[in-house]
């Protein structure tokens, strides 16, 4: 047996998987190899120290500290999710105006109505209530149900889809009017 094989058998011995015949072979090698003998002594010593080292506990109150950190983290996430939904709701509520500002299209009837704030106060109130209704429900969903970021993103996507639907419907109506105009 050479020293390399002896090293492998030492590991098996430490794991308790060394068969009796190999025990005898290893001992024979160690008897005539001082280097391996010294290594085996050191390995056994290290094995002994590691095997007797206890589990070290954290300082008292660890679970409370984790709970406090978790509560702070959850509060931040809920607030962030709520703000995202609120922004999406605001976007939808004021979509007609944004549509008029951002796209080279004639303003939609909604936008025209919003521009005529002074003359059509009732419509403005309706738009405001619609925005508040969406925002309130979105926030309630975020705060009470602890929805994850994916749920918030899905709700935001739905709001943007509705915005696109509204824009598309307006374009169709505009096209209809152009066709019907002689």
């Amino acid at each position, binding site marked *: 047996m050479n020293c390399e094989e002896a090293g*492998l058998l030492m590991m098996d011995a430490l794991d308790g998987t060394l068969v009796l015949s190999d025990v005898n072979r290893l001992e024979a090698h160690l008897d005539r190899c001082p280097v391996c003998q010294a290594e085996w002594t050191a*390995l056994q010593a290290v094995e002994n*120290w590691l095997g*007797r080292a206890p589990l070290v*506990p954290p300082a008292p109150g660890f679970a409370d500290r984790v709970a406090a950190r978790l509560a702070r983290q959850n509060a931040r996430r809920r607030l962030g999710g709520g703000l995202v939904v609120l922004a999406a709701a605001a976007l939808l509520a004021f979509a007609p105006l944004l549509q008029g500002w951002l796209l080279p299209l004639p303003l939609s009837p909604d936008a025209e109505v919003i521009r005529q704030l002074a003359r059509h106060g009732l419509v403005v109130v309706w738009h405001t209530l619609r925005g508040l209704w969406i925002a309130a429900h979105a926030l309630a969903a975020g705060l009470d149900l602890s929805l994850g970021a994916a749920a918030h993103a899905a709700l935001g996507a739905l709001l943007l889809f509705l915005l696109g639907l509204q824009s598309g419907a307006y374009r169709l109506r505009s096209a209809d009017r152009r066709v019907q105009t002689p």
Partner: protein
Amino acid sequence: MDTERDWIERARQGDQAAFTQLVETYQVPVYNLAYRMLGDPMEAEEAAQETFLRAYRELHRYDPTRKFSAWLLAIAAHHCIDLLRRRRLTWLSLEEETLQAAGWTGPEAGPETDPEQAVEQAEREAQVQALLTTLPPDYRMAIVLRYWYDLSYEEIAQMTESTVSAVKSRLFRARRMLARAAQQAGLVPNAPRPASEPA
């Protein structure tokens, strides 16, 4: 354990009190792993807390057919390895002063029965920790999981996303490195002894 499954299910639904029960149950093994890996109580506290926060965020990914403790320890292990790699430490051979400063007095002779047991225990703790710091992160992880958690090669491989042969190789080298570090520091005699004599 039915109680544990119940805690996990409730924690998944956002019940923080149930998650706190899990923290109380596993705080010692998670903290110990972080402490053995990082070697510093403050860093270990931070790493153990972060482990539980990550576990809470990732609970929906937990596979109930797996042992929860193994899943949790895997999160802790990966986090500690990341921290150690970020430290960009240079892994040098053991310096004798490190262990002597830790209060090394020689190999253990047997169970402690004298009044100085607590002091000796603390010294031995420091010695073990000093030895561990001589290992690269991957080797240290293998040693910690093997000796403090009594995991099999297969379990360590699964936990560290490695192979059984790689784990065996790491343990083999890690043990040899520890033995040589102890020899170089004069913690064990270099003179040959009979193989059957206990260390």
